[in-house]
C-alpha cells in the first residue's frame, strides 16, 4: 500500500499570502515557513484527509486544471520530502 501523508488541521496554522508566496506559522512547532506553490496546496489537501502521492496529484490536477497527473506526481513527491523535513507533513 502506498505511503500516505497527513498534515495538521488548518486551525493549527496561520497562513498569510504575500507576493504569491504563503507565509505559514505552524502553531505546534512555533516555526514559520515560507512556501511556494504547490506546497500550500499540498498542505491544504492533507489537512482534510490522509492521501498518498497519487491522491495529492489528483487534488492538484483539479486545482491547477492540469491533466498530466504523472508529471504532477513527481513534483508532489519532491515537495513532500521538503514538507516532511519542515515538520508540516507526517507520514502515517
Amino acid at each position, binding site marked *: 500500500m502506498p505511503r500516505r501523508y497527513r498534515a495538521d488541521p488548518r486551525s493549527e496554522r496561520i497562513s498569510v499570502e504575500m507576493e504569491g508566496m504563503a507565509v505559514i506559522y505552524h502553531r505546534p512547532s512555533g516555526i514559520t515557513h515560507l512556501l511556494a506553490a504547490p506546497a500550500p496546496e499540498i498542505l491544504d489537501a492533507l489537512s482534510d484527509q490522509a492521501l498518498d502521492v497519487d491522491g495529492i496529484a489528483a487534488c492538484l490536477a483539479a486545482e491547477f*486544471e492540469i491533466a498530466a497527473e504523472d508529471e504532477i506526481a513527481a513534483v508532489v513527491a519532491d515537495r513532500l520530502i*521538503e514538507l516532511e523535513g519542515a515538520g508540516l507533513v507526517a507520514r502515517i
Partner: protein
Amino acid sequence: MAHEGPMNEEPREGHPAAEVAPTRRRLLMLGAVGASAVVTIRPALASTAGSILNCEIPVPDPGHSGNWIDADGKLVAPNTPGAYPPALRPLTGEQVKSNLRYGRSYPGTSYDQSRAYTNYIRRLQQGTSGFTCYASLQMPRG
C-alpha cells in the same frame, strides 16, 4: 534569433496554442522537481523554548528506516559490524541538546551508540526529517 528548447512556449506541431500553452504555464506554476518550495524562516521566539525541545528527530529518517548507523553517523546496511540499529523511538530536541552539551546518552543506549546517533544528526541535510528540529537547536535564543 529563434528560441528553441524545452522552455519554448510555442505550440507543438498539430496542437493549437489554446490547448498547449495554458497547461504548460500551469505546470510551470507547479515548479520543477529538484527546485525548493519550502523555506523555514526562524522559530517564533515566544514559543521557542517549549516547542523546540519537544520536536523530534527520527534516527534514521523514515526514508532510511531499514539502515543502521555507523560510528561516524553514516547510514550503512543492517548488521554492519560496529554499526547500531535505528533508535527505537525518535529522539527529542531536549535529548539531543543534553547529548550535545553534556554528553548525556540517549535513553537505553550506550555512550558509543549515542555518539553515533548524534553524528548522524549532525549530518542531517535540509529536507531530511528532523533537520528543522536540529537546526532550531543551533539557533541563538532571542
